[in-house]
């Protein structure tokens, strides 16, 4: 059984734990400068959106990256729309999975 990625988990822990611990352990820590806080709270939507878009819309072919708009992109968009509408990620995921599975069963995707 592979354990190579345990090293990656340790590194990810190493960059996550300080954000969780420093404000709790350093009495002099009050708060980061407001511009830094404002930037940090925007990182989440930006990076997660970029990951989703690149994952589903870019095909990293040998000849270079190309834009691909397939049924999977529609499924992901549907999930995002449901989360925006109902604030329910589980429902969005279920719809995306069902949509993709149905299209593939029909030989469309």
């Amino acid at each position, binding site marked *: 059984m*592979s*354990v*190579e*990625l*345990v*090293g*990656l*988990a*340790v*590194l*990810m822990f190493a*960059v*996550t*734990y300080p*954000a969780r*611990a*420093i*404000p*709790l*352990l350093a*009495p002099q*820590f*009050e708060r980061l400068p407001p511009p830094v*806080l*404002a*930037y940090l*709270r*925007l*990182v*989440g*939507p*930006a*990076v*997660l*959106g*970029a*990951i*989703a*878009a*690149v*994952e*589903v*819309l*870019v095909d990293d072919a040998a000849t270079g*990256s190309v834009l691909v708009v397939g049924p*999977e992109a529609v*499924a*992901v*968009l549907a*999930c*995002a729309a449901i*989360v*925006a509408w109902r*604030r329910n990620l589980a429902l*969005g*995921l279920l719809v995306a*999975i069902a949509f993709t*599975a149905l299209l*593939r*069963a029909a030989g469309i995707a």
Partner: protein
Amino acid sequence: MGGIAVSAVGFGIVFGLTARGAGFSLVEAVAFSTLVFAGASQFAAAGMVASGFGWGAIVLLTGLVNARHLLYAAALAPWLRVRPRPERAAMAHVLTDESFALSLVHFRRLGVTDGRGYWIAAIGGVFIPWNVATIVGHVGGQAIPDPTVLGLDVVFPAAMAGLAVGLATGRREVVALAAGVAIGLAVALAVDPRVGVVAGGVLGPLAGLAVPRRGGPAPEPVDLPGEVRSLAQRASDDGIAP
């Protein structure tokens, strides 16, 4: 707390499936859920591993995505200051979106710090369900020979998109999300998908910052993200606070 635990179980199972699909062994998947214990970055890392990203890029994005924990820790610091330092060091590791929301509601309702309540929320409500579900998802995935037939390969990008939309609670967040997507795609097509993700994550927020902030009530003790306010409300509705 039940609603939060059920949510952790559902999402943990999906992570177990995703990790398995990305080629993680069971030990590796469990290591992620116990050591990192941060869902969004775990999903992102699984997808990036599957796509061949280098560890440096994954660690960089993990740091960026999880930097929001600074906000949570800063908000809880005044409450937990009375607890012994070693306990606070341990409490920090199980500080997540959910445990933060549950604890803050609980402390505010009581008006005092309740260390036992924090541990019940963080360990019983999130850590144990998340890790058990990761194992169930990974092991259960063995019964699924080809996850793509069932559409399970779309879980990762759909989860990333859903989480991103969930975090986009204001104009600045929406602009940062749109800019992250646009920059990420443009750089991915022009240079490389891996560079595109990093560029979108680092530069997208700068576009969001260019949007003037709307006026509103000053939150306390720190400006909490919208999804945490929502979690706090759910926790309150659940009657989590003992």
